């Protein structure tokens, strides 16, 4: 394997716009996911910068309180559903088939559908800004602020339908990747030899298909309340606003792990490469990921310690919450042990991966403090929680995802990102991040509630807020540098070659970008790091059952004739029909019919489409 010459760069991405619209190639879909999710990431970032501007000084009047509420609602919603989850999905798309030795995912057209539903759903959600106002009740949509009585525009409907649409995308993608991982691994790629990123993708997939139905039900009930006059969440009709909180957090807490586990997978593959050592405690890292996911379903009411559910419920959920610290700590120890004894090279991906560990430790520790209800009732709904969640989701997830971007950008594009500017990006982001969110711990302790658009000069919060704003804009600057670096490197970055980092997993065995068919011959795997073994000798078998050793899979430079799935325009039409129908529920019923028609016809077209 891995003998294609460096100079050959396959034209994986060549073609017309039509070829992109109809593509079912996981690598192209990954590119679409990357571009779209980073665009939404920028949008959510701009929203955050406006929030920070308004809070930079006490009693400022830059943003009207209603606009402010729209900004923090859309910032949260955008970052969770339109930026971080799809950015993880971009990595699933790019890497899972390459890492397990498959030519594509199990259901290529379904994969395209997931992307188009996501894109249209994201646009749909943001149309609300120009169609009478964006949702303004917080990303958690607590009842009864979502009730018609308190939200009489369509903002909440945009939010509820938007999340339903995005849920479809996530569930479809998860089923696709679960099936792919279970069924399409190359011969010899046992579960015990899968790259850790694939493990975390698998676990995340299960989290999504178990967690999303809960929010789906919640949103359906909410829409019943709004459209049909039911009272699931309205006490006047016998309902209970607390029911919504339960439904939301039964979904919402696993959602946090949906956001963090893929980044943990990325870090688990970056650290070994730049330490030149295999991942320490492979099985324990994998199982602790599964343990986090499992326990994650039993901790949701720690978001509700201030509701007054009683000491017994508080005790039970405090203990389950604290228990999460154990598998999380175990992961961190194993990562440090991976570094221990290695030959550590601080290239940009490695800096971000180490940044992930360093920042996530703090986010995890403040999480433990929030798991103690008597502490939580003091700092719940203050900036202490804002600081905590950003140390987990920014210090953790975003640092981890950037480690992945710097690590696999060469594989995806065939070119290196500039290392110097990458380091500037890292240090600016690291400084800006700590400046933005570090002081927020103190703000919470000083009693500053979340989601307030202004505060008095007499509260003693002004200096920390100013610091936080400076930090946020520093992060913004670092992202600008990243964007310029990415665009420039895509055009004129240095040639990456197949294996720029001396990697170990299968994706480093092929040209960059990989050819359309990925693998000329399906590889046979007998090691956790098959490419590393080829180069440096093996031993990371991780096998209980030893597979027969691999025959040499070298091939000549001729383009092999490999059957790949045909492009299809049905996925984008199905997605368009679905979102059009949702638009109809808000604007005019005729679009519901039209959307349903397009949806139905396209589904039939999809089913009837002849195999290539």
């Amino acid at each position, binding site marked *: 394997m*891995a003998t294609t010459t460096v100079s050959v760069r396959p034209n994986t991405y060549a073609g017309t716009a039509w070829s992109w619209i109809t593509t079912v190639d996981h690598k192209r879909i990954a590119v679409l996911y990357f571009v779209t999710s980073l665009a939404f990431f920028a949008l959510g970032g701009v929203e955050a910068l406006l929030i920070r501007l308004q809070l930079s000084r006490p009693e400022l009047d830059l943003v009207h*309180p*209603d606009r402010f*509420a729209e900004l923090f609602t859309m910032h949260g919603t955008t970052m969770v559903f339109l930026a971080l989850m799809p950015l993880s999905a971009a990595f699933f798309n790019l890497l899972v088939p390459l890492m397990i030795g498959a030519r594509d995912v199990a259901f290529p057209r379904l994969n395209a559908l997931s992307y188009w539903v996501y894109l249209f759903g994201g646009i749909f959600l943001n149309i609300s800004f120009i169609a009478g106002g964006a949702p303004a009740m917080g990303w958690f949509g607590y009842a*009864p*602020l979502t009730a018609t009585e308190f939200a009489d525009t369509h903002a909440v409907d945009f939010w509820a339908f938007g999340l339903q649409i995005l849920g479809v995308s996530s569930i479809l993608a998860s089923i696709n990747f679960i099936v792919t991982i279970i069924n399409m691994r190359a011969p010899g790629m046992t579960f015990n030899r899968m790259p850790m990123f694939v493990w975390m993708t698998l676990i995340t997939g299960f989290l999504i298909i178990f967690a999303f139905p809960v929010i789906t039900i919640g949103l359906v009930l909410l829409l019943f309340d709004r459209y049909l006059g039911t009272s699931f969440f309205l*006490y006047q009709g016998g309902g*209970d*606003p607390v029911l919504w909180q339960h439904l939301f957090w039964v979904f919402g807490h696993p959602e946090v792990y949906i956001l963090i586990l893929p980044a943990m997978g990325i870090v688990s593959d970056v650290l070994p490469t730049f330490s030149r*050592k*295999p991942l*320490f*405690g492979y*099985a*324990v890292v994998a199982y602790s990921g599964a343990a986090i996911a499992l326990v994650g379903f039993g901790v949701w009411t720690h978001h509700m310690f*201030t509701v*007054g559910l009683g*000491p017994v419920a*508080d*005790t039970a959920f*405090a*203990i389950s919450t604290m228990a999460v*610290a154990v598998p999380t700590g175990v992961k*961190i120890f*194993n990562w*440090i042990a991976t*570094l*221990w004894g*290695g*030959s*550590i*090279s601080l290239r940009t991906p490695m800096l971000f991966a180490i940044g992930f560990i360093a920042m996530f*430790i703090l986010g995890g*520790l403040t999480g*433990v*403090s929030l798991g*103690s209800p008597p502490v939580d*009732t*003091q700092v719940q*709904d203050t900036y202490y929680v804002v600081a905590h969640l950003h140390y987990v989701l920014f210090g953790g997830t975003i640092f981890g995802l950037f480690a992945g971007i710097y690590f696999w950008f060469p594989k995806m594009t065939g070119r290196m990102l500039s290392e*110097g500017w990458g*380091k*500037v990006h890292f*240090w600016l982001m690291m400084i800006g991040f700590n400046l933005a969110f570090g002081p927020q711990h103190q703000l919470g302790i*000083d*009693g500053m*509630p*979340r989601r307030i*658009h202004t505060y008095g000069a007499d*509260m*003693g919060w002004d200096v*920390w807020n100013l610091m936080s704003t*400076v930090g946020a804009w520093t992060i913004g600057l670092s992202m600008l540098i990243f964007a310029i670096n990415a665009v420039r490197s895509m055009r004129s970055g*240095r040639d990456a070659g197949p294996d720029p*980092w*001396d990697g170990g997993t299968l994706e480093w065995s092929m040209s960059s970008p990989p050819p359309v068919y990925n693998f000329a011959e399906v590889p046979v795997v007998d090691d956790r790091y098959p490419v590393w073994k080829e*180069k*440096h000798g093996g031993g*990371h078998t*991780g096998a209980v059952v030893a597979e027969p050793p691999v025959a040499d899979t070298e091939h000549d430079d001729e383009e092999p004739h490999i059957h790949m799935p045909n492009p299809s325009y049905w996925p984008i039409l199905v997605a368009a029909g679905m979102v059009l129908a949702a638009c109809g529920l808000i604007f005019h019923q005729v679009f519901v019919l039209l959307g349903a028609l397009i949806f139905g016809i396209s589904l039939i077209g999809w089913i009837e489409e002849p195999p290539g």
Partner: protein
Amino acid sequence: MRALMHGTHLRPRATGAVQRVIRRVSLGAALLLAALVLAACGVTPQTILEPTTEAARASHWLFLVVFWAGLAVFVVVEGALLYTIWRFRRRRGDTLPAQTHGNLKLEIGWTIAPTILVVLLAAFTVPVIFANAQEPEDDAIRVEAIGHQWWFEFSYPDLGVVTANELHLPVGKPAAIIIKSEDVLHSFWVPALRGKLDMVPGRTSVFRILPEQTGTFPGQCAEFCGTAHALMRFTVVVEEPEEFDAWAAHQLTDRVPPTSELAQAGEALLTPAGCALCHTIRGVTEIGTIGPDLTHVGSRTHIAANTMGMTRSDLEHWLRDSDDMKPGNLMILPRPLTEDEIEALTEYLMGLK
């Protein structure tokens, strides 16, 4: 092939310019940090670090336990991380490191270590949960705290007192705070007295506060409740029992009749200007129940849910353009008031001691 695939030929090309940028940025950030830290030593009235009751002290104590334990773990683990990176940084001529895969004893060790910490923390936490859930005594002073968009109503069912945004409690006597909401979620939070409890429409929650120190303690709504969420504050005044009794007795009286001509003109405006539709001023009008009771509004220290002082200029500003002061507030005037009317009403309201 083999040599090519070692990553070593791709050394970072950090140019002089880039390094200079890095140096300058880090220096600037360090200076800024130092300046801000120096400037940040101010007064923070709503801090959680100055508890004045047993319940708040218990939370505070637990916070300190978690904080110091967390800090210790933080220092050890971050230290281990940084030390490892420094010690095993790649050097010229590094050979392939030993390819270790794991170590069962280590895994068991670092599973047990956090487990012990967590069990200890749970052991500290659980008794506090139950202690803080203590039911109020039967003879506790009952206060209904009702959340409204965007102000707090406090009513003492046993005393017959109804007031807004200023909760009075006698020191040394337990109080049962009965927490409700009239519209959306709010949260009742006075950090000095105890942790917060959400005000949920359709639910009644009760918690006990036993004030130990006299003084004035700021509180604020902590659950997002719509447009003016940021401007929904209140104060708890803890006073000697005699002072409290005198306050309560005074609150029960009808409004102080206006003496000056200007104030009398103000009182005459209550109905024509629309005030009476929402506000009760006992002795004059008792039909309004939507807005805060104003019978003794002049005796309170603040207006507009404790976001503005009870001063002539703020009150005039409020009557002239309440939406400018507190965007989204639900006070609706049938017609704008004239400057003369504003002056008269201000004089009248300030006199309602």
